[in-house]
């Protein structure tokens, strides 16, 4: 069983280390739109998806790689939890 709070922490940590900090952003809220201001770029989206699949052992289809599903840490967490339940 995946623990929601732990999932969120891991996602936040990854996004911060992998994308935000290298771009001079040291803090992001769970609601912040990650695609805005170029925190994550087009190649970054696929690195993020690969990370989620590997870390949480879920499968994310190309058709699920959408703005609604990945726009914020909250949205990503929701996607991962919904996938893990299946």
């Amino acid at each position: 069983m995946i623990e929601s709070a732990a999932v969120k922490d891991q996602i936040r940590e990854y996004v911060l280390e992998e994308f935000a900090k290298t771009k001079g952003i040291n803090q992001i809220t769970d609601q912040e739109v990650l695609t805005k201001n170029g925190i994550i770029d087009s190649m970054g989206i696929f690195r993020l998806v690969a990370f989620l699949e590997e870390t949480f052992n879920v499968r994310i289809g190309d058709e699920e790689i959408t703005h609604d599903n990945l726009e914020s840490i909250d949205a990503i967490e929701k996607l991962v939890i919904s996938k893990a339940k299946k």
Partner: protein
Amino acid sequence: MAYVLQQLLSKSAKAYPEKIAVWARGRSITYRELDERSNQMAHLLRKQGITKGDRVGLFFPKCVESVVSMLGVLKAGGVYVPLDPQAPADRVGYIIGNCGIRVLITNHEKREVLTPETLELLESCISTDQAENGKDGKLIPWSMLAEFPADHAPAVSLIETDLAYILYTSGSTGRPKGVMLSHQNALTFVEWCAEEFHVRSEDRLSNHAPLHFDLSVFDVYNTLEAGATVYLITEELALFPTSLANFIETQGITIWYSVPSALMLLLLHAHLTPEKLKSVRTILFAGEVFPMKYLRQLAEMAPAAELYNLYGPTETNVCTYYKVERERLASLEKLPIGIACANTEAFAVTDDGRRAAQGETGELYVRGPAVTYGYWADQEKTQKMCVPNRFEQNFEEKMYRTGDLVTMAEDGNFYFLGRRDSMIKSRGYRIELGEIESALLSHPGVREAAVLAVPDEIVGNRIRAVVAIHVPDSLKPMDLQQHCSTRVPKYMIPEVIELCVELPKTSTGKIDRVKLASAKEPVSVR
């Protein structure tokens, strides 16, 4: 015949007043509204003191108001300067100071990004937000437009050689440089496109490129020229291939223009089918080399579409083009950049100064009315790149040195071979490695820095840096990436930074880039 860009709008506003001109973020504007709002914007700018030749910055994410602002500035006789809405405050501030922008069209969120020093330079800011009460009285709300006449633009006497816009690109000396483009420069290109691609009023054009990128000139002005509709693709939508493919299908896009990497993302991740692209009749791409493997896939997905490889630096807009010959796709090993556009001459010049013969390598030179006058407030750089045409004895004119090495093959097409200098392309963006090196060197802990391009099939190049620091273990790669983020756009921040005590040198004491490049295997996607 139009001699200034805004005449393209006047013509279509008369012919198709109720047709949608621009669509963005679920909102749209008709030709009549675009004409009226831009008239109002021109009057408002006049009231703010903008007169002929004055620069006005545009600093906000793509939306309907972007096109209103561009046309409004032109109608006021001004010169617009599109600023990358994602660029760091330092870079935006530099550009505002460099070309003397006193009036900025922005929004509340973006204005917050600017430094106090930059705000000092600005006399007023016009906000694209409907209602905005600037505390300091410097923010004028969009709703203010309603107070100005809509039925006519202010009187202004412009001729075709007056400037229309300035596009800033990466500069090798550490600061971006502003390419000055006149109405004539833009119209030479727009008229060629109208003729070659037969843009019609029924067409639906996409705009994928950011507005500070010269690809967008086609999207916006060829739409206006034809009385067609342009669909502005926001940065957020561009990130998600499946959503983007659905967008193309549901909006019925007929003409697509983007960098190849955007098309490759669609091919790799959008589950494309010919059905999804069935409305698209013409696909144009430019800005980087399109690998043949992916071009063949694209041709299969859009079996009826005409495909064009367009080539040219911002300084000339597109200067050569190659219409993809489907029957040659299977055998062609490398995609040509083709032949010169109408009203443009392009030729290769050898190292010893001769015009290159067929099969010889030379630097591509361009002459004609599409070519820039040079760089804003940079005589030295202008003289280096825009040189007197020594092949013409009878009158004086300039020609532009592209810095690109090319050869003309037996098929009569030019082929791109490489660069003369250290400029590279990544996702179609022009990047001077020297600008990144300057950013790294501006950190007090850095002694030496070398920035290298690592070739990548999808994005063109990835950026790797090797940095020698004064005190071992005093800095982490992340510190330097953060430092860079305050000076250069995100796409220029090195993905990988390796730290060392000293960079390897050649026998003449220069940084040994060959050794550095071969030292490590290419960086892969983590």
